[in-house]
């Protein structure tokens, strides 16, 4: 099978003498760094840690569900398991996953900047993330929390005696980390673009991060104040959400979902950015309908703020508001459909190769399509009544979040790994991992759609025996999936020392980040670059290479 990977001659190639990795050694040079690339690496390490913590809880949940009764653990332990799984995965993995690691690393380079606009705030954001993470772990070690990641009142405020306050404050702090990341991105995109880098020359990765950042900046504060009210209500007993004092618990639902629905797009939009880059690079073509894909990101960001009440169709909101929110939900599905078709047509008349990032991207397209279309089931009000709060919804958001976002994350990590470390990952093993992940994923989550339609409720520690077969399948799949996630962890670590030297542009990609050395120097560019070509201009790249060959040779 042919490939576009072009590596320098391995016998003579070395890593560059000067790069951000060897610009200062020792813990202090990392922990006090202002370099967006180092902060990205710090983030990468910490979110990987939390991913495996969250994955452990997911494993425990699946293990308990192997049999109908609660035999492995007691019901309250189970509740703590899925709560910690949710909190860790949503707030400590998915929300920062692509933006804080890959975005942090490549976004400034893509726009031609030497760093993000506010390096210190970027570092602060990582520290806030760590504090949030440590508080979550503290809540766990002190005895756990069992509210579910949704912190539903009045359950969370009056009926549980677990560490709700610690967990709530942890999410509050982690939320500010996300606000600062978003703020940094927006300002960087507006003010730090290199000369010639117009808005429509920006890679689609930047567009999607910009859209996600708008959501982070405008949505997260609402979650923050909601959690403050929950904590105040729990600690001193104010009555904003307490029905006994005249408060309305539905107001909590409104405020919570006002953030948590856009949060879904905070999680998926950066992943879509990765897919745009990867599909374009490995089909050697400009993304089909660049403008449409760019604006569909913006459209998603705008609509995302007006669909939150579709989480509350069965909660007795008025029929008319249900109508409006259902309609808007249908509208927000359209930009995602546009993206999927545009990516598909990017392949048309391309020159396609199947490197690992591309395999993950294909996985993303298939799984995200399923995830998105099942979202239409749930947005359709009458269908939502039967499906909501069952395993159908669990399967739906795992198809979007894990099948979509995690695939995109792994795709991105493989794609930019040579840029981050200067070394290639092992190709054969990584293709195997992509395949294992895909199979494991489908085995885990597809049965859950059927379970959901059969009516199995989510968050059940015990279930009627007729659901066992599908649950066993799902647990078996989770095992495979676990292997699929451990593999990259192992071979990527291995490649840090033994991987092939990648050279500046192993993929022959057009992004600005590929025109500098790998790994880059601390200030990214020797001189401020001037951009005189459109995004995804492979002819420009070919001419440039030819020109170099001519002048050098």
């Amino acid at each position, binding site marked *: 099978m042919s490939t576009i990977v072009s590596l320098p001659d391995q016998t003579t190639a070395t890593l560059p003498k000067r790069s951000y990795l060897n610009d200062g050694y020792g813990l202090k040079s990392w922990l006090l760094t202002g370099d967006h690339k180092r902060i990205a690496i710090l983030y990468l390490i910490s979110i990987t840690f939390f991913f495996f913590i969250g994955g452990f809880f997911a494993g425990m949940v699946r293990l308990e569900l192997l049999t109908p009764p609660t035999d492995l653990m007691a019901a309250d332990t189970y509740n703590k398991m899925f709560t910690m799984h949710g909190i860790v995965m949503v707030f400590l993995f998915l929300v920062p996953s692509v933006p804080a690691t890959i975005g942090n690393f490549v976004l400034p380079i893509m726009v031609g900047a030497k760093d993000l606009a506010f*390096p210190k705030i970027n570092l602060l954001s990582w520290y806030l993330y760590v504090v949030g993470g440590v508080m979550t772990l503290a809540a766990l070690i002190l005895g756990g929390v069992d509210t579910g990641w949704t912190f539903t009142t009045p359950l969370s405020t009056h009926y549980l005696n677990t560490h709700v306050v610690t967990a709530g404050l942890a999410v509050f702090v982690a939320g500010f980390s996300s606000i600062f990341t978003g*703020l940094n991105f927006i300002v960087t995109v507006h003010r730090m673009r290199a000369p010639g880098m117009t808005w429509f020359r920006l890679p689609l990765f930047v567009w999607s991060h910009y859209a996600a950042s708008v959501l982070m900046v405008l949505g997260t504060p609402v979650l923050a104040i909601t959690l403050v009210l929950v904590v105040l209500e729990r600690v001193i007993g104010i009555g904003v959400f307490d029905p006994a004092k005249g408060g309305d618990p539905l107001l909590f639902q409104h405020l919570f979902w*006002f953030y948590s629905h856009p949060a879904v797009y905070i999680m998926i939009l950066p992943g879509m950015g990765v897919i745009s880059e990867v599909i374009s690079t490995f089909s050697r073509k400009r993304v089909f309908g660049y403008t449409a894909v760019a604006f569909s990101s913006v459209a998603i960001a705008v609509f995302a703020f007006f669909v939150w009440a579709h989480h509350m169709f069965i909660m007795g909101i008025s029929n008319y508001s249900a109508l409006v929110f259902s309609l808007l939900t249908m509208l927000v599905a359209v930009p995602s459909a546009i993206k999927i078709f545009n990516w598909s047509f990017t392949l048309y008349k391309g020159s396609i190769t199947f490197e690992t990032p591309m395999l993950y991207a294909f996985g993303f397209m298939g799984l995200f399509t399923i995830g998105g279309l099942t979202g239409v089931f749930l947005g359709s009000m009458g269908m939502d009544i039967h499906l909501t709060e069952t395993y159908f919804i669990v399967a739906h958001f795992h198809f979007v979040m894990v099948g979509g976002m995690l695939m995109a994350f792994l795709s991105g990590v493989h794609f930019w790994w040579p840029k981050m470390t200067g070394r290639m990952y092992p190709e054969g093993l990584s293709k195997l991992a992509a395949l294992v992940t895909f199979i494991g994923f489908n085995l885990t989550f597809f049965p859950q759609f059927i379970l959901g339609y059969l009516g199995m409720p989510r968050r059940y520690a015990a279930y009627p025996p007729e659901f066992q077969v599908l649950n066993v399948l799902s647990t078996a799949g989770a095992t495979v999936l676990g292997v699929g996630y451990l593999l990259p962890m192992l071979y990527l670590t291995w490649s840090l020392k033994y991987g092939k030297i990648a050279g500046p542009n192993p993929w022959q990609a057009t992004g600005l980040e590929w025109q500098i050395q790998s790994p880059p120097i601390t200030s990214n560019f020797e001189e*401020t670059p001037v951009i005189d070509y459109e995004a995804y201009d492979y002819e420009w790249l070919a001419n440039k290479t030819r020109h170099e060959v001519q002048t050098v040779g």
Partner: protein
Amino acid sequence: MDSQAIATQPVEDHAEHAHHPPYLRHHFANLEQQKETSTFGMWLFLLTEIMFFGGLFCAYLIYRNWYYPAFVAGSHQLSILLGAINTAVLICSSFTMAMGVHAAEMRWRKPLIGWLLATIALGCVFLGIKAVEYNEKWEKHHVPGLNFSVDSFVHQDPHYPEDKPLPLDMAEKTQVYFSLYFAMTGMHALHMVIGVSLLIILVVRAWQGAYTQGHMTTVENFGLYWHFVDIVWIFLFPLLYLISRHQ
């Protein structure tokens, strides 16, 4: 070298690089960009603050609609005098802050320190008065959750003879009013405390002359923050103290 630079005309005169002022951070091309960037960032941050308080205002509007008599009765328990003094104090502090920014622009070190200290003093006065008000609420048993009692609302209040006492069910809803009162003014006070703490750092740095050598973006941005906190109060004061006075 070829593999590192992409395109390649240098944008600015290299001679200029030699005269970098010390406060120009390495990743900005020039001072103007640096200033624009940080101001833009500050405005964006204030936008997130608006969303933060927005959740509270939204809750306030909903409950005010539902429990109008309770909100009227609740607001009658606040002291307009103290609220008005605090409003005046805050407006003055915004003035002193603005003068501070002006002083920094003019590169006057001592006046800058003076105006910043005045701002700190006014901020502390505001917090002091707020503390007095909170204490009064505590003594009158108006703190929901901790020591709330409906007594002041089910009986005739001698200070407001035209106010009818509330029926018990509505009187209990004043808890919602006071919950929001404490949440809103508490969050505002927290912003004030943060502001005063930052001001102390600013004074120290100003003493060292950091803002009077042409680089005063920090002072300017802090000014934006301070005015924002002020404006939040300008909304809180009428909503919590005033608009239910004359039904």
